[in-house]
């Protein structure tokens, strides 16, 4: 049950604020750090996209006021204030937001039991040119109230390579946790120039999501490398990077990993078999959905392009028709308005649905990797057990090693299981939200077009009535 006390208030307010940000196009749902509730309710969602708070204190009153100030959009403000009143009085005002979307979001943050205390934004891509290369850095702002952080606010610049490094470290540290996916290095198809604006913007959004998902993950959020990534200055980061296990040792790990995976997994436990099947099927489906969604966007874009031409023809026609001028001009303006509505629908699709679906395509690849790593760990154990059974190698140390490995396997399996449940919840909610968004966009589109044409019709009938009455002597 959502605790609507002070602590919960701050979180709810924060989440609500995040949600209003979300209304501007980002609806990422990732679970708040809820250490005790892995499957924390169907709705244990707080919309991602943490908002930077100007003040650093956790005082709810301050937060509330400042958040309200920040709100520029009328609609957002309205919705948000309703949320606030909800929280305040612990009763529900009749002015509930009517869109089902906002209802979902309400459900989500009411369920918050923990404080979200780490807020990250990724913005301001900047191009850097050196003699060797050109690359883009992104500004990362972190605001936190956690004790282990030296300060409450950090600002750093990172480039894509740094993100890659972070991801690698996380995978190393937690091989069987589901690490959020990074946007692709580059999209081969249709990429003329590596740094065109759309590409950068898409990547920025995805990087923002990436970091926030880590922040929301119950385990990953406390990872040391993550902290360094968010807080270290450029030179600090590069020196830290060099400290990691050397290239050779990393290679050694890889070789061992490959070797063990080649042996195949004989005793994959039942639940992981199920998991594997699910992942395979899911991967198929999500890829299909990705393709379909891209295709829909393309078709809508082409429809929009043709419609742009359609309206003006009626204006052209009205030039040669004296008696039909008004009717034709009205038709033209209706068509133009529907055209604009189409554009809005398209942009809704590209902001709400496409990134989500695409992220899950990457997730599905990531999941296969996780399964593999789990299998590797198990394979290591199996090979030692085998060695013991057949007395292949020196058997003195083996039992101890096997013991350690058994622990390792158990840890890995448990970690994966827990994370799996959490991931599945998130996935279901995200996908649902994305499609609900799309449905809502469609509804708005049709409602707008309907209104446009209906007003045209009424104006024509009114005109007709006027003319009729004029004719009467």
């Amino acid at each position, binding site marked *: *049950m959502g605790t609507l006390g002070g602590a919960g208030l701050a979180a709810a307010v924060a989440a609500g604020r995040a949600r209003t940000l979300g209304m501007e196009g980002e609806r990422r749902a990732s679970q708040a750090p809820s250490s005790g509730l892995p499957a924390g*309710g*169907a*709705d244990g969602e707080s919309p991602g996209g943490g908002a930077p708070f100007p003040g650093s204190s956790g005082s709810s009153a301050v937060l509330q006021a400042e958040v309200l100030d920040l709100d520029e959009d009328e609609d957002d403000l309205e919705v948000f204030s309703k949320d606030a009143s909800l929280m305040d009085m612990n009763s*529900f*005002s*009749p002015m*509930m937001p*009517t869109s*089902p979307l906002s209802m*979902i979001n*309400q*459900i989500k943050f*009411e*369920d918050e039991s923990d404080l979200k205390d780490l807020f990250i934004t990724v913005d301001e891509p900047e191009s850097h040119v050196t003699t060797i290369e050109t690359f883009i850095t992104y500004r990362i702002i972190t605001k936190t109230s956690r004790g282990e952080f030296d300060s409450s606010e950090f600002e750093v610049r990172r480039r894509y390579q740094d993100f890659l490094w972070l991801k690698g470290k996380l995978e190393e540290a937690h091989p069987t946790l589901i690490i959020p996916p990074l946007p692709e290095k580059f999209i081969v198809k249709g990429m003329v120039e590596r740094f065109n604006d759309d590409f950068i913007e898409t990547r920025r959004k995805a990087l923002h999501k990436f970091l926030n998902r880590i922040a929301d993950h119950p385990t990953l959020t406390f990872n040391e490398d993550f902290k360094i990534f968010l807080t270290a200055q450029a030179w600090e980061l590069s020196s830290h990077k060099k400290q990691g296990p050397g290239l050779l040792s990393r290679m050694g790990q890889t070789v061992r990993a490959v070797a063990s995976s080649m042996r195949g997994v004989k005793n994959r436990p039942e639940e992981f078999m199920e998991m594997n*099947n*699910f992942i395979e*099927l*899911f991967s198929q*489906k999500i890829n*299909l*959905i990705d393709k*379909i969604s891209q*295709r*829909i966007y393309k*078709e809508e874009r*082409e*429809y929009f392009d*043709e*419609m742009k031409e*359609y309206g003006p*023809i*009626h204006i*052209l*026609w009205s030039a*040669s*028709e004296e*008696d*039909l001028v008004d*009717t034709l001009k009205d*038709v033209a303006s*209706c068509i133009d308005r*529907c055209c604009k509505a189409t554009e809005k629908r398209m942009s809704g699709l590209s902001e709400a649905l496409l990134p989500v679906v695409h992220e899950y395509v990457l997730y599905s690849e990531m999941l296969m990797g996780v399964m593999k790593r789990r299998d590797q760990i198990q394979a290591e154990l199996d090979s030692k057990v085998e060695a013991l059974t057949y007395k292949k190698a020196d058997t003195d140390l083996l039992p101890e090693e096997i013991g350690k490995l058994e622990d390792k396997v158990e840890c890995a399996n448990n970690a994966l299981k827990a994370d799996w449940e959490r991931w599945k919840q998130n996935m*279901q909610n995200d996908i*649902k939200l994305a*499609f*609900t968004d799309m*449905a*809502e966009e*469609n*509804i708005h589109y*049709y*409602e707008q*077009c*309907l209104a446009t*044409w*209906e007003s*045209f*019709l009424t104006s*024509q009938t009114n005109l007709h009535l006027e003319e009729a009455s004029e004719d009467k002597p």
Partner: protein
Amino acid sequence: MEQAPPDPERQLQPAPLEPLGSPDAGLGAAVGKEAEGAGEESSGVDTMTHNNFWLKKIEISVSEAEKRTGRNAMNMQETYTAYLIETRSVEHTDGQSVLTDSLWRRYSEFELLRSYLLVYYPHIVVPPLPEKRAEFVWHKLSADNMDPDFVERRRIGLENFLLRIASHPILCRDKIFYLFLTQEGNWKETVNETGFQLKADSRLKALNATFRVKNPDKRFTDLKHYSDELQSVISHLLRVRARVADRLYGVYKVHGNYGRVFSEWSAIEKEMGDGLQSAGHHMDVYASSIDDILEDEEHYADQLKEYLFYAEALRAVCRKHELMQYDLEMAAQDLASKKQQCEELVTGTVRTFSLKGMTTKLFGQETPEQREARIKVLEEQINEGEQQLKSKNLEGREFVKNAWADIERFKEQKNRDLKEALISYAVMQISMCKKSLTLSPRLECNGMISAHYNLRLPCSSNSTSSSRVAGITGVCHHA
């Protein structure tokens, strides 16, 4: 689905009294009379034949289309479509209709009828036929003449053609038209016997006149420009509409792909299963709704196409005027030159170069008798010429008057029809939006959310907050 022309057209009204009585072969009085084919543009005679009025109302419909095979002129097997034309007369008193005639005609016979009307009523804007071949098609639409959808639209177009003729005050009285509706066999022969093909103006002559005419009536020149503009703008509009239809079709149909994926996915998803199924179903319905929508739009396109073809009919009237005017100018010129010749002969002065003059110079003067004879001939010719010029002038003016009257009628008809078409387009868009709206809310309210939240979210905001609270708290932590 029939394209419904405004009601008055369905029934032949008694034709209004017209002072410009073209001597139509009245239908009522046609019995026994040879079909003159009322073509002579003017007669000063006021033929208000009361017998021509229709006392009964007549309903005409092209109700069926049938595929047939037969042998054509070259004795080869061919497949064609025949259309059933039914004529009903509606008694005044009780409004019951009685089938009076029904016969089958094919498209080529309609064409023959129209060609005939064009020759005998050059001052009338003759209604056009539906297109011979499918044009402005978007990719799914078939361009095949035998395609059932095309045949159906053609059937409606042909009915519209007949109704337009039947409601035209002048054309409706034409005997050949009447026979077209009533005489199954031998109609073709009857038409050809009128010899209308011979009376038709040659294309070459018309083209020549268009270029050479010096003083056509300005209104006709303007009309020509208007009809060119109309044709070009409607063609453009139809082209773009076809492309838009294509794209719209694509958008809807691709959504249908979701349907299959969702249903397959619902098999593995326990919690979301229902939602996915329902969503998939809705996608399918959405995708298939486009077929009806676009079919309706084809009818709108057909309405526009009719006026596209009307542009050509307008130009035909203009051409006829130019031809007559040119004829007149030529006749006047000819007369003037003959008069001058005569004058020269009489006065003996040679002012202009002429072959006669040359030969006279070369071979000597002609004898007075010869000269007298020539003068006499010329004077006769001049007389004739003057008569002809007078009658041509009269003809020309009559033509302009009659044609312009019909053009005014046409303009009003066009304004009415086009306005109606545009309004019907808006109505179509509205119904398309409504249709799609009825599909969408269920998508979000039913499928996607409820399965997991176990909550029927209201699609309107009527429920009270407290019930919502109950719903929400009841759902939290549903693992």
